[in-house]
Each structure stands twice: as structure tokens, then as C-alpha cells.
């Protein structure tokens, strides 16, 4: 086996191991939301959506936004983004 092939294989092995160390924002949406101290609590957003008839499954922070996984009032699966200060819906790259 040539040295070049073994080097390439090693590189692939390192790249394959890379996912173990990668984390962070998904880039689906970003919010210019400043310091988290100024944000409204996640619970308030979840309560607001439940009021609308949503079945909220999870709220996370992504790209400075609140990212909500839920079934909406029509029973549709949604992954929705909200501005954490205004709690306004933010359009994602998918929408």
C-alpha cells in the first residue's frame, strides 16, 4: 500500500472522528437578541404557545433564538424559532 493512500485513509479516520467534538448553532435562524439577561423566560413562551393550543415538546436556545419543538394547534409537527426578547416568531431558512 502506498504512503499516499495510507495518509488519505488516516485523514478520513480523523474526519470521521471529528463529529465527536463539533457542537453549536445550527444556523437555521439567528436572532440579534443581546445578553440573555434581557430575555423573557422560556416558560413564558411555552405557556403562551400552550394557550394557542400547541403541544410544546422542547424549548432550546439556538443562534440567539428560542427554538421550539411542538405539535401546533392543527396537530402539525413544527420546529419554530422565536425572538427571546419580543417572543415574536422568526422565519427560519426552511420557511
Amino acid at each position: 500500500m502506498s504512503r499516499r493512500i495510507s495518509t488519505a485513509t488516516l485523514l478520513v479516520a480523523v474526519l470521521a472522528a471529528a463529529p465527536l467534538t463539533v457542537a453549536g448553532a445550527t444556523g437555521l435562524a439567528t436572532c440579534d437578541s443581546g445578553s440573555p439577561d434581557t430575555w423573557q423566560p422560556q416558560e413564558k413562551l411555552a405557556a403562551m404557545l400552550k394557550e394557542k393550543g400547541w403541544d410544546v415538546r422542547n424549548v432550546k436556545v439556538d443562534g440567539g433564538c428560542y427554538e421550539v419543538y411542538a405539535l401546533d394547534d392543527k396537530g402539525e409537527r413544527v420546529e419554530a424559532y422565536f425572538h427571546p426578547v419580543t417572543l415574536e416568531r422568526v422565519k427560519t431558512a426552511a420557511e
Partner: protein
Amino acid sequence: MSAAARELRPTVPVWDALVRVLHWSLVVSVAAAWLTRHSPGRWHEWLGYATLAIVAARTAWGFLGSGHARFADFVRSFPATAGYARDVLAGREARFLGHNPLGGWMVVALLTMVALVGFTGWLYTTDRFWGVPWVEELHDTLSDILFAFVALHILGVLFTSARHRENLAAAMLHGRKQVGPAGGESAGEL
């Protein structure tokens, strides 16, 4: 044996066309699924279904196929596998035309992990489990374990290629391997 003499050794078909096509399409679809993990749209989902279809086809071929494609050809008992591992550590392991005992279990591990990652990914798209944090975490953790196995698999291929002075990755492309040197064959080789 000199390099020139090795070149003269005849080659035999080892990996049939289906084994090779399924191997590389699994590589491509798993890599593409990884790259699209946060992409908008449903690419990641469709790639997940593709990996599950490939795993199902390879598993079926492991029972219906012939020769070195069969699980019966390369899935060996734990004592036999442990014996092979000891031989590797002692630097006196036999060469196998098909998968060696550790490689054989790696095939099983990789197929199982891709199936589990695909299954938990599908689960996450059902109304019942959509957005449920533990399903997402399980899917992520299983993918990390899958990629650790992929890294080990590549290192194993690299190591075994070097040990027996043959390019195993290339053999998975063209499907052929050289027959062993006369007198140097082990019981497990063919």
C-alpha cells in the same frame, strides 16, 4: 517476497458487485446524512431512509448471497475472534481473503449502529416522539458511537492493509484480492 513477485500473484474475485455497491453507497449516504444534519428541508430524513434501505439490503444479502458476502463466511465465534485478537497482538495473525474475525464483527457492529441511528431518527419524526429531548439525545449519542466505529473500521482496514501489504480499500472498489503465497496459507484463509 519482493514487490515484483507479489505483483505476479494471481487475483481472485472476493467482493461481489452488490457488496461493493452497498458498501460505498452506505459510505456516501451516511456522510451526506451527517452533512445535512442541520439543513433545512427533508434531505436528512430521506438520507436516513436510504441508509436503512441499504442496511436492510446488505443484511438480506448476508443470508441470500454467496461466498464472502455471507455472514456465515465471516461472523465467527467469540473464542475464535478472541484467538484472532491475541494473534494480532502477538503479530502472528492469519490473512483472510474475506473479512477477518474482528473485521466481521465490525461489519455487524456498523450495520447495527446505522440501523439504530436510522430507527431513532425515524422515531423523532413521528407525532408521538417529535421534539422529545431523550429521543434526540439518543439519536445524537448513537451517531457519535457510529462515527467512533467508523474511525475504528478505517484504522482496522489501514492496519490490516499494512500488515499484509495489500490495499483493502481498493479491493472493496474492484472486488479482487491476491491469493496467498504458497505454503503461507492459514486454515482460515479460504
